[in-house]
């Protein structure tokens, strides 16, 4: 049993635990904090997949920026504890059955997938795979045009958001 497998098991278990806590926590603040820890453990899984950049972005963007926004909204709305669970209605039972059925189908489909060994990489490839440097090089050489188009998209979205958010024009 190598260290990679142990780390994977630990991160996977913690991810599942905190994801469950997101759903089952009564207070929205606790849910949000559990979501933060889910994101952190997911980032650990990404590192194990050799995707360092994605892991860093996960922590910076999701656990950092987006969760702060979530917490702000929760505090501004001043949500209290969620009410008690209540009696099972037809919609709830049907939803539960549908979800379970979907999970079964998903599991069957996944179990049919052939197990493939990871593609072999040469030494030079393995050294640069998933690093910020190689990602930057791809974005700024090959994918330059769509990347610049995305910057235009962000500018337009920002101006549009300001225009729509203005109380009165």
């Amino acid at each position: 049993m190598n260290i990679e497998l142990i780390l994977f098991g630990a991160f996977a278990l913690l991810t599942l635990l905190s994801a469950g806590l997101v759903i089952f926590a009564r207070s929205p603040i606790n849910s949000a904090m559990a979501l933060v820890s889910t994101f952190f453990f997911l980032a650990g899984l990404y590192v194990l997949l050799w995707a360092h950049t994605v892991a860093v972005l996960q922590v910076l963007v999701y656990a950092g920026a987006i969760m702060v926004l979530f917490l702000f909204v929760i505090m501004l709305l001043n949500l209290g504890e969620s009410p008690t669970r209540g009696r099972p209605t037809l919609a709830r039972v049907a939803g539960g059955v549908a979800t379970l059925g979907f999970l079964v189908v998903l599991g069957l489909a996944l179990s049919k997938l052939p197990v493939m060994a990871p593609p072999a990489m040469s030494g030079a490839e393995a050294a640069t795979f998933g690093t910020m440097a190689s990602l930057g090089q791809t974005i700024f050489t090959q994918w330059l045009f769509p990347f610049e188009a995305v910057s235009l998209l962000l500018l337009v979205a920002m101006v549009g958001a300001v225009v729509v958010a203005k109380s009165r024009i």
Partner: protein
Amino acid sequence: MNLPNLTLADFLPLFPAIIMVAGASVLLLSEVFLSATSSRAYQAVLTVVTAVAAGFAALTAMFEPAHEVFLGFGVLDPFSSFLTFVVCVGLALAALSSVSFLRKRGAERGEFYALMLFAAAGMSLLAMSNELITLFVNLEVLSIATYALTSYLRRGTRPSEAGFKYFILGAFSSAVLLYGSALLYGATGSTKLTDMVGPLSGALAAQPLLVYAGLILVGAGFAFKVAAVPFHMWTPDVYEGAPTPVTALMSAGVKAAAFAALVRVFLTLGKGIDPHLPLVLFSVLAFLTMVAGNLLAIPQRNVKRMLAYSSIAHAGYLLVGVAALFVTGPGEQFRLLGPSELTGGTPVDLARAQALRGILFYLLAYTFSAVGAFAMVSALERREDEEKGTAWDLERFSGLAQRRPGYAVAMAAFMLSLGGIPPTIGFMSKLLIFQSAVDSGLVGLAIVGVLSSAAGVYYYLRVVVYMFMRPVPEGAQTLERSWSTELTLVLSTAAVVVLGILPGPITAWLQQASRIFGL
């Protein structure tokens, strides 16, 4: 590190978009220095000047030989340059007609024109995208700009409803398009359209469901953007709720750009698959769109809503031209107007070039007629009537010929052009589209098109009847005059009539513009 070898030629197709983005930035930054009461008359003028400059840049690029730019992520071809020109025409006219519209509502802001310019830049970039991710990003640039413009004036419930509906359904359709692109990427292993053609036939043999699902989802995403039936539900509400100049830009520009992307994607990928699939897909869409668009427009008494349904019907006629692109062998026996003047290439190439010419001319014709008609609607509407829902009622056109004969003549020209009656540009463009359909052997679709446009004449002529044969209603408000609206009307009417009688000047351009990259 191997850097790609980018030269000035790579940036040539981007010039129109760069000019428009620069113009938008000037508008945004100059707004910082203005107080609430400063004069903002320069903003529309700057927008029009920018649009003219961008249109000129597009025309210059049109006579360059077609080539890939940015490592195949985009292309420079006469087709995309001509569409950029059409977009610039629509933008200039829509910006001119928004001057008095915004002033009457006290809502003149640089952001409005900047968003219009951003939307037009997105349309221009969409027309030249040759890779699915680039295409998606550019489609979002134009969509997000138009979402924001739709809810620019949020007074009353209609604009909010329109903006929200457009945003939610637009996001949904973008997701559908993206899903289809992902499936096609999975099937072919590439997102560059040119590189996808080769593996596509192999993928079709190995996993036909995956390829078909991908193509149909991409087609559905585009069908939403061009407002084809059955993806048209949003159109009437959004067109009615949006500020009228924005509706004009949406009906002209968004449609032109979405058709450009649709034609490029399906024409390029069509080389790798059996052409019957796109033929059947677009024939069915064209049939439904023409019939439903015209039938739904007939009961409308609200002119703005009627024009929205009419824009659906016009998407149907354009789809007839798109379907004609995928015919394998043209029906020589049905030559409607004698042999085509195009020479060189196989009959299939000729039929294709003719259909492309028809689509492009139709888009130009529709831009002039629709933007003119919406400018007229915005000249007559008053903010106070919007909540009552009577701002766009047919009654407002009653007796217009006695009050403002010039306006009435202009509106009559637009209505005749939209209805396809000679001697207007609308007639010429319908003739070209249906001619190419008949030449390609789609006789049935052409007959349905002619019949449904005959049904459409009813609701276009009803506006003319109200203007010329009804008395002026009691207590009608005096109409304010504004130089910009009148300039829009004069320019559109001149184009509609002159190009309808003498389409000569632009046939050379159209001949050139029917050259699409990779054909």
